[in-house]
């Protein structure tokens, strides 16, 4: 057993981090705030060229032939870079939908509301990035289907919570062409939850980094606010949440790759639960460390809190996940 990142994994992460900082710095990303197209397709293709979407596609099919754990390491960097767009859905589609792997086709994912499900009776389906998608995959519960996004009757929602995640309300998702069966749909949910967890770990880490930077620079009472214990402890708790969630996400993804070491569904469910919490709590804590500045649109820390809120709704709710974990007890 060796649960440390390998040198290759560290290099992979470094490469993606550099790509994000160089090609998609925050000030550039922010130019598209609150527009219906927040994804820079040229940069998307560069991510694809770096292998982001085809990491687990077998080499024989033109992919990198790596594992989900490698992908989790990379997705943490995409999360920390606040990279917008349907990263996880396009990753899941690579190798199954032509063009997803090379970035020429951007794939989104929506879940068809199930009538019997408590609490969703009057709520329409909310789809992300609809106007810029090339393909929409719908999780029908018992399988996946493929829908032409242009054929979806939708109303764009003004002022989406995360200004880099445009949203549309869809009263009725059209029936699509069948894409895959129940087992594949379950695999998408599991692998998708693991990678969304990795994005959340990245957000949690970034929220902590900017809080620490600010706490070092900002002075009050004649000293840096980071020397006050109340501030220090907010930051220390951010580290604890991030490290715990990262270990859980890596274990979840690795259990998918190495099924003999444990129950992958359980490991991923727990990982997503804790990663969601880490990102949400760190987003709030980081705003707190920034004081009034943290409540301004200009200072970007709110973006992490908002993205975390969006990602926390992916692949089921926290309550679903906790209940599923309890079922195995």
């Amino acid at each position, binding site marked *: 057993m060796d649960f440390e990142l390998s040198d290759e994994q560290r290099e992979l992460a470094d490469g993606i981090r550099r790509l994000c900082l160089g090609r998609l710095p925050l000030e550039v990303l922010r130019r598209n705030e609150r527009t219906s197209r927040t994804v820079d397709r040229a940069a998307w293709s560069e991510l694809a060229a770096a292998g982001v979407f085809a990491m687990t596609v077998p080499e024989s099919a033109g992919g990198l032939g790596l594992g989900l754990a490698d992908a989790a390491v990379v997705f943490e960097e995409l999360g920390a870079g606040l990279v917008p767009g349907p990263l996880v859905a396009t990753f899941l589609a690579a190798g199954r939908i032509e063009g997803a792997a090379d970035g020429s086709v951007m794939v989104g994912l929506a879940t068809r509301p199930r009538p019997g499900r408590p609490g969703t009776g009057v709520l329409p389906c909310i789809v992300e990035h609809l106007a810029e998608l090339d393909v929409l995959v719908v999780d029908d519960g018992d399988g996946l289907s493929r829908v032409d996004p242009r054929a979806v009757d939708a109303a764009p929602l003004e002022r989406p919570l995360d200004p880099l995640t445009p949203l549309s309300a869809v009263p009725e998702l059209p029936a699509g062409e069948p894409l895959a069966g129940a087992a594949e749909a379950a695999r998408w949910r599991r692998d998708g939850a693991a990678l969304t967890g990795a994005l959340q770990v990245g957000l949690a880490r970034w929220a902590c980094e900017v809080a620490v930077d600010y706490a070092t620079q900002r002075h009050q009472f004649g000293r840096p606010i980071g020397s006050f214990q109340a501030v220090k402890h907010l930051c220390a708790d951010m580290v604890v949440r991030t490290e715990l969630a990262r270990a859980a996400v890596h274990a979840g993804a690795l259990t998918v790759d190495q099924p003999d070491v444990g129950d992958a569904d359980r490991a991923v469910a727990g990982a997503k639960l804790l990663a969601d919490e880490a990102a949400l709590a760190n987003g709030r804590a980081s705003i707190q460390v920034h004081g009034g500045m943290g409540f301004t649109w200009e200072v970007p820390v709110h973006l992490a809190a908002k993205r975390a809120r969006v990602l926390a709704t992916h692949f089921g709710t926290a309550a679903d996940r906790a209940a599923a974990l309890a*079922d195995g007890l």
Partner: protein
Amino acid sequence: MDLRPTPSEAAFRAELREWLATSLPTLPPKPPPHDWPARRAYDTGWQRTLFDAGYAGVDWPVEGGGRAASPVEQLIFKEELEQAHAPYVGVNFVGLLHAGPTVIAEGTPEQKARYLAPILRGDEVWCQGFSEPDAGSDLASLRTRAVRDGDEYVVTGSKIWTSHAEVADFCELLVRTGPEGSRHKGITWLIMPMDSPGIDIRPLQTIAGSTEFAELYLDEVRIPAANRVGAENDGWRVTMVTLSFERGTAFVGDLLEAVELLSQSVDLARRTGAWDDPGVRRQAGHLRAELDALAALTKRNVSQAARTGVPGIGGTVFKLAYTETRQRLGEFSLGLLDRCGLAATAPHPLDGGGPLPVGTMVEDWLRGISLSIAAGTSQIQRNIVAERILGLPKDPPAGDGER
């Protein structure tokens, strides 16, 4: 990243599991929790059994008489022992986890020859005399004074919270040899025989009603200078060796015990009907996620220790997270007992079934409270994370010398 065991790790686990299956049934019955001499006999007897089978000090280096197991094997060792319900390290804790490793790292050849083997055999028990009434978190302010007199130190002062003092043969003692105010630059590490004249041991009762720790009054206790480990006034550095051990893989057994407590709690919830409540199930599911994540974090820390050779700062992060989860688990399980959790003795259950696990759960809830205090409070641990991992500025004046 690879979670699969290597062939040698798998073989180590299999061999250990087989040995546990044959040797645990021969164990004497557990002693009553408040009978310390009986507990000492039980714990040291188990240590002797481990020694005879070649499993004593698996984590110790070969030159110290240990097995020099890799950090991963140490993890396997602790997992297997806990899963087989083997006895806990108990009174051997300080010797095996603090004093022994310190003597190995910093002791003279004579000290190694004298002290190490008896710890491994379970012949001698150690306690830790670090904290003082006026020096807890701020350990570097300790005042117990040692004055050199020929080839002896004459020690006067008091120590507090000394676990297992009543049954210990030796104490790893921190004393002030430098001038007043010399803080961490004037501390020396001594081996104090507990039968030395001038030691007065006064047991302190814990909130659980037990007497696990004591106050030590030291009145001109004479300790041979040959019992000094490391140089005079260099005891702080020597101490850091032990404290980092304490924050390494020390919680593996506790974590598995928590997993067991969760499953006991779920059994109880099924029995009382509380399991029908989705809120209760969600809490249990959440605790399971946390315990799984803590197990993953342990593996990460162990892997890091395997690479770097030292238990890293990850142990501090682990302790903070584990403490919170364990305290929440305690609340959860006690809550399931409703008002029957208000006494440590179980009333007769109305379903006519076996006894309710009341004692365990009350005890665990109470013990959980000490987790955020013992071995460095959670506040101090947060300071450490903020200052040493994140590099935030020190908070004057208590910068150096926090435990």
